[in-house]
C-alpha cells in the first residue's frame, strides 16, 4: 500500500464512521460532501482538499476514486440506484447523456449567484461542450485537445522549418518528408482504430457531423466528404501506413526511428515523449496546432476534457457548488496542472509564465482557442465508433467511400430515431426544449 493509499483508507474509514455514528469528533458539525474523481485526477485531487477545507471549515470532502474504464457504468448504476455523489468529475462528452437522464443540475442559477465565474473565464469551445440547449450543466475542470506532434529534424531535412498550416501545404510537407525517409517509412500516423483524425478533418471542412438538431447524420453531405477525402488522400498516397494502433507495438520507438514522423495526439504525450524518446532526440520533436483547409484560422480541433457537475439528487448542493467554484479558480487550476500536467480550462491560468514558458504548452494554448464540441447527443460515443469502423473499411479497401458513407448515414439515422420521436413529441405537446 502506498502512503497515499494508506491515507485514503484512513479517510474512507473515518468517513464511514462519520456516516454511521455521526461520531469521528474531527468532523462534528461539518457537512460531508462526496466527490467522485476518475483515474489519476481522482487520486491527485486529494492533495487540493486540505486547502479547500481550510477555506471552508464547515465542509468536509470525501473523495472516491473510480477507474476510467468503470466510471461510466458506475455513474449510471449510481443514478438508477439513487446513490449519485454530490459532485463529480465528468468527461465532457458524457454531459449530454447525464443531462438527458436529468441526473445533473442545471447550473444557470448557481452561476448567477457566483461573481467571477461565468462562460467568459473559459475557452469558448470548451465551455460550449457543457451547454445543452442553452443551459449550462458543467464547469470545465481540465481540458484536452489534439495537435500535431512532429519530428522537427526530419521536417528540416525535407526543407521545412515549421509545419505548414494549410491542408495543401501540410500535404506537400508530408510528400517532401516521404521523399526524404523513403518507401518503408511514413510521414504521418493515422491509426485506423481512432475516430479522432477523420472527425477533426470533417469538422475543419465545416461539417456539423449531425444535423437537424442532432437527429440526422450529415456524413453524406459535401462538407464531411471534403474532410474525409483529404484524410483518405494521405493514406492512398502512401503518406500514412494503413495500420491500427494495436499493430504498432511501441509508437514512441517508431517515432524515434523515423518510421512515423507526425502524429495527431493529445497533451498526455508531451510527458510521454520526454520520458520515452532517447535524450539525443529531445530537441528533435515539436508540436504545432492542427492545420486547416484554408490556413490556421480553420485549423479546428476537438474540445475534450473533464467538467465538474453537481447532482440533482444531492442534499448539499450549496456545499458541492462551493467545491466546484474552488476547483475552477485559476490558482487552483494552476496548482492542479503542476500536480498532474492536466491543462487548465480557465483562460486566466494560461497567463502564468510557468505554463507559457514551454513552447509545447503554447501550442496547446493556441489550439484551445480553436476547438469545437462534437455533437452533443448521448449517442455520440457510439456514432464515433461507427465512423471509425467505416473509415477503417475504406482504408483497408473493404469498402468504397460512397458505400461506406451511406452505410454510416443509414446506421446513424437509425440510432437517432428515438431523438426524432422525442423532438416531434415535445413539439406536438408544446413542451420546452428538444432534448
Amino acid at each position: 500500500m502506498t502512503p497515499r493509499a494508506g491515507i485514503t483508507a484512513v479517510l474512507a474509514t473515518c468517513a464511514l464512521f462519520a456516516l454511521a455514528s455521526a461520531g469521528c469528533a474531527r468532523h462534528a458539525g461539518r457537512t460531508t460532501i462526496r466527490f467522485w474523481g476518475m483515474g489519476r485526477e481522482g487520486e491527485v485531487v486529494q492533495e487540493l482538499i486540505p486547502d479547500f477545507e481550510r477555506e471552508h471549515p464547515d465542509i468536509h470532502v470525501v473523495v472516491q476514486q473510480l477507474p476510467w474504464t468503470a466510471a461510466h457504468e458506475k455513474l449510471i448504476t449510481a443514478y438508477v440506484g439513487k446513490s449519485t455523489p454530490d459532485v463529480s468529475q465528468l468527461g465532457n462528452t458524457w454531459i449530454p447523456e447525464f443531462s438527458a437522464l436529468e441526473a445533473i443540475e442545471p447550473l444557470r442559477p448557481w452561476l448567477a449567484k457566483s461573481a467571477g465565474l461565468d462562460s467568459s473565464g473559459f475557452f469558448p469551445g470548451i465551455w460550449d461542450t457543457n451547454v445543452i440547449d442553452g443551459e449550462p450543466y458543467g464547469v470545465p475542470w481540465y481540458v484536452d485537445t489534439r495537435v500535431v506532434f512532429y519530428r522537427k529534424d526530419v521536417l528540416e531535412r525535407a526543407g521545412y522549418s515549421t509545419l505548414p498550416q494549410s491542408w495543401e501545404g501540410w500535404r506537400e510537407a508530408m510528400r517532401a518528408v516521404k521523399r526524404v525517409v523513403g518507401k518503408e517509412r511514413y510521414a504521418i500516423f493515422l491509426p485506423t482504430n481512432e475516430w479522432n483524425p477523420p472527425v477533426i478533418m470533417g469538422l475543419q471542412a465545416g461539417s456539423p457531423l449531425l444535423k437537424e438538431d442532432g437527429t440526422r447524420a450529415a456524413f453524406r453531405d459535401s462538407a464531411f466528404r471534403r474532410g474525409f477525402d483529404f484524410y483518405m488522400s494521405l493514406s492512398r498516397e502512401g503518406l500514412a501506413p494503413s495500420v491500427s494502433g494495436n499493430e504498432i507495438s511501441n509508437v514512441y520507438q517508431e517515432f524515434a526511428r523515423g518510421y512515423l514522423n507526425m502524429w495527431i495526439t493529445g497533451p498526455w504525450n508531451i510527458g510521454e515523449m520526454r520520458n520515452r524518446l532517447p535524450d539525443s532526440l529531445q530537441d528533435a520533436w515539436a508540436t504545432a496546432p492542427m492545420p486547416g483547409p484554408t490556413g490556421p484560422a480553420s485549423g479546428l480541433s476537438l474540445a475534450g476534457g473533464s467538467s465538474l457537475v453537481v447532482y440533482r439528487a444531492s442534499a448539499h448542493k450549496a456545499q458541492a457548488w462551493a467545491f466546484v467554484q474552488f476547483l475552477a479558480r485559476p490558482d487552483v487550476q494552476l496548482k492542479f496542472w503542476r500536480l498532474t500536467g492536466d491543462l487548465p480550462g480557465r483562460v486566466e491560468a494560461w497567463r502564468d509564465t510557468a505554463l507559457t514558458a514551454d513552447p509545447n504548452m503554447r501550442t496547446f494554448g493556441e489550439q484551445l482557442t480553436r476547438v469545437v464540441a462534437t455533437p452533443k447527443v448521448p449517442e455520440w460515443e457510439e456514432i464515433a465508433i461507427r465512423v471509425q469502423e467505416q473509415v477503417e473499411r475504406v482504408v483497408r479497401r473493404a469498402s468504397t467511400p460512397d458505400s461506406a458513407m451511406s452505410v454510416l448515414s443509414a446506421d446513424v439515422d437509425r440510432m437517432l430515431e428515438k431523438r426524432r420521436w422525442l423532438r416531434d413529441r415535445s413539439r406536438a405537446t408544446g413542451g420546452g426544449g428538444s432534448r
Partner: protein
Amino acid sequence: MKSLTSEGRQQSAAWTFLAPALVLIGVFFFVPVLAGLVMSFTDFDIYSIGRPDTIRFMGMDNYRHVLADGEFWRALRNTLYFVVVGGPLSVATSLAAALLVNAKVARMKGFFRTVFFTPVVTTMVAVAIVFRYLLHPHYGLVNNALGFFHVAPIDWLGDPHWSMPAIVLLAVWKNFGYNMLIFIAGLQSIPEDLYEAAQLDGAGWRAQFVHVTLPSLGPTFLFVGIMTMIGQFQIFAEPYVMTQGGPLRSTVSVVMLMYEQGFRWWRMGYATAIAFILFAIMMTVTVIQMKLQGDRGQS
C-alpha cells in the same frame, strides 16, 4: 386414509424443503427472465431511465431490427465459427487428453490431470496477457516456432483472417480440461471385461476404440456435446479481453454484441431481443442434437 395423510405430510415437508431454493430461483431467475422478455418488446434505452414515459411498446420491432442488422449476422457468423470449428476441436482435444491420461501405460496421472485442468481455473485476463505475448507478430513464441518451418510471421490478432483461429485456439486450450475430466470419468466406468472380451475376439486397439470405447461413451458424448455447444454459443470473455471484437469486428460474438448494446449503449430493449434470439437458436440446436444422438443411442 392413514397412508394418504402421511403422504400428504411428506409432500408438504418436501415443499417446505424445496421452498427456499424455489423462491431464490423464482426471484433471481424466472422474474428477471420474464422482465427481460417484456423489455425485449419495448425500446427501453438511455432516455427511458430518467423518463419512463418515453418507453414505447415496439411489438416485434426489436426482433425485426436485430434480424435486419448486418452487425448481428456478422456476430452470428463469428459465433457459429466458434461453435462449428471450436466445438468439435475442443471435444476431440478433451477426448484425446482423457485417453492419454487414462492410458494404462501413463505415469504421473494425477500430475497431468492437474496440468491439463489448470487453464480452466486460471483467470481469463491473466491468460490473455500471456497469449498476447505468445501471439505477438514480431517476438511471439508462436511465430518463432512457425519460423522453424519457414512459415512467414502471422499477425494473429491484427489480421481479420487470423484473429478467429487465434481465439478458437485460445478457447480450446483454456477449456478442454473440463471436458477431459468428464471423459475420464466416462472412460473409467467402462467395464474392463469388455476390453478383455474384445481382445479375445482379436480386436486391435483401433477396433477396441471404435467398438468398445466410443459406444460406451455415448451418454458422455451427448452431455459434453451439448454443454460445449452451449458454452461456445455464449463465448464472450475470450474475444472481449483479447481483441475487443476487432480487427474489423472480426471477433465480435453474439453475446459481446448484446453486452455492447445493453451495457455500453444502454439499449436494453434491443439487447434483450438479441438475448432471446440467441436463446431460440441454442434451444433449436440442442433439440436437434439430442434427437440425433438419442436416435443413434437407441438403434
